[in-house]
């Protein structure tokens, strides 16, 4: 891995992601962006709020990037998560990887987002018209 970008930000800018992941040794770049969806289980979401334990979140994101680079031959890895209030359609997370061949970047990209959702201390509160819900908190 020649470059690693791990960050918690207020706002995700998707326009530069492919430029950030581009390098001469890569033939493929795979990127996943998670955005705010209007409906969850049939209920209209007004907005989401993300909160994090930043010091630990950055450590965990760093581990995920390093683990991915051990599992696959990657050139550049990006993991960037937004915090604060997000409206419908806004990006909240972007993960991506570049590699010589496409197998590696596809598999790594999937690993990055799946693992982030399992281990990184970030919490999402869904705001509906009449209630707010901390996602996954209760069985």
């Amino acid at each position: 891995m020649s470059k690693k970008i791990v960050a918690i930000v207020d706002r995700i800018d998707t326009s530069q992601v492919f430029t950030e992941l581009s390098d001469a040794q890569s033939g493929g770049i795979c990127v996943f962006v998670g955005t705010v969806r209007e409906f969850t289980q049939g209920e209209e979401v007004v907005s989401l709020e993300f909160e994090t334990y930043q010091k630990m979140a950055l450590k965990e994101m760093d581990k995920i990037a390093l683990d991915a680079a051990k599992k696959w031959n990657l050139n550049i890895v990006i993991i960037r998560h937004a915090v604060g209030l997000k409206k419908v359609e806004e990006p909240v997370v972007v993960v991506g990887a570049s590699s010589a061949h496409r197998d590696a970047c596809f598999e790594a990209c999937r690993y990055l987002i799946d693992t982030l959702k399992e281990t990184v201390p970030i919490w999402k509160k869904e705001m509906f018209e009449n209630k707010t819900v901390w996602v996954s908190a209760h069985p």
Partner: protein
Amino acid sequence: MDVLLFGIAKDIVGNSEIQITSKEKIPNSVQELKDYLIRKFPDFGKLSSFAVAVNSEYAQDDVPLNRNDEIAIIPPVSGG
């Protein structure tokens, strides 16, 4: 001993931190801290699960706690 709270843990306690003073029995391990929290705030027992981080790393139940550790309650994460 100070314990940082995030997400729903903050809502359960009504604060972003708990201070456990020496008037109480200070938890000596992650397991003891979890027991303490569930005893004092029964809503912790209703969560899907919750973890404890010691010095910003996930800690197993048998990890000992020291006064100078940075201790945090990690309710079920939901990033992404």
